[in-house]
């Protein structure tokens, strides 16, 4: 099944639930009508939270940069000896 179909099915299911709640009036309709807004707000907050958390926990590797510098020096030395042009750009 295509992914978009899965998402649509999910949305249709949620909408049906929402309509059901409106019709049966188990919950006061003033609240029910606002549910989609709450849902979108929650989704937005969740997204921002994930971005924020991810940003804080973004793994960095400064030591790799140093190792890379060493690798570059080693590589240039080896290749220069064997006739490969590694002059600076």
């Amino acid at each position, binding site marked *: 099944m*295509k*992914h*978009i179909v899965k*998402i649509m099915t999910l949305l249709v299911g949620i909408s049906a639930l929402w309509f059901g709640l409106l019709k049966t009036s188990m919950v006061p309709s003033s609240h029910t009508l606002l549910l989609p807004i709450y849902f979108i707000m929650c989704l937005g907050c969740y*997204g921002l939270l*994930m*971005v924020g958390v*991810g*940003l804080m926990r*973004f*793994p*960095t*590797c*400064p030591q*790799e*940069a140093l190792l*890379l*510098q060493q*690798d*570059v020096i*080693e*590589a*240039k030395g*080896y*290749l220069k000896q*064997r*006739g*490969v*042009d*590694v002059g*600076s*750009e």
Partner: protein
Amino acid sequence: MAERNKYSIIIPTYNERLNIALVVFLVFKHLWDVDFEIIVVDDGSPDGTQEVVKQLQQVYGEDRILLRARPKKLGLGTAYSHGLKHASGNFVVIMDADLSHHPTYLPSFIKKQLETGANIVTGTRYVKGGGVHGWNLMRKLTSRGANVLAQTLLWPGVSDLTGSFRLYRKSVLEDIISSCVSKGYVFQMEMIVRASRKGYHIEEVPISFVDRIYGSSKLGGSEIVEYLKGLAYLLVTT
């Protein structure tokens, strides 16, 4: 006991005169006990990249380094297809030429694949053990935002969608590449998403990504628009 595997490493290049030499040296250093070949797909670089590749061929052998050039910039996707046509290995590695993908991780890709029998092993920068260096806050924010958006919309099953440091079983790569139509790095996303949809076994290994030290990066502002368009396309067609 695994049968003899051969790894074809496809490296597309454009103006990577210095980096390609460094990358080749490091690949040979870290894969000294592995049967592999390097396929350089150069798109007519004006800076003399191809001359350097020919010098490297003198050092390492023309059977280990294949130069399969093209006349001009023809895009990343077609570069892979082109390289694939000349690949004699049963596994294919794709990586960048600018040293942001460090060959020191190649053994871990191979090991992961042998351990799990996976069809695809993809490098991820976003998990513990991996990471980035040289990214300012803005770049990290964009990257993280883009990733969260993609995860929410696509449920791709991998943590790093735009990464392009990957090991593919050759037959799997051939299958996916024929069904991908995007350009640039959206192409990378399309490949892994399609692979995920087709049910291929995908594993991840952490990699570090040190921002390029030589040359100019090819990431710009219009890339964000392209990215969003690419997400929408993938949302609807995969």
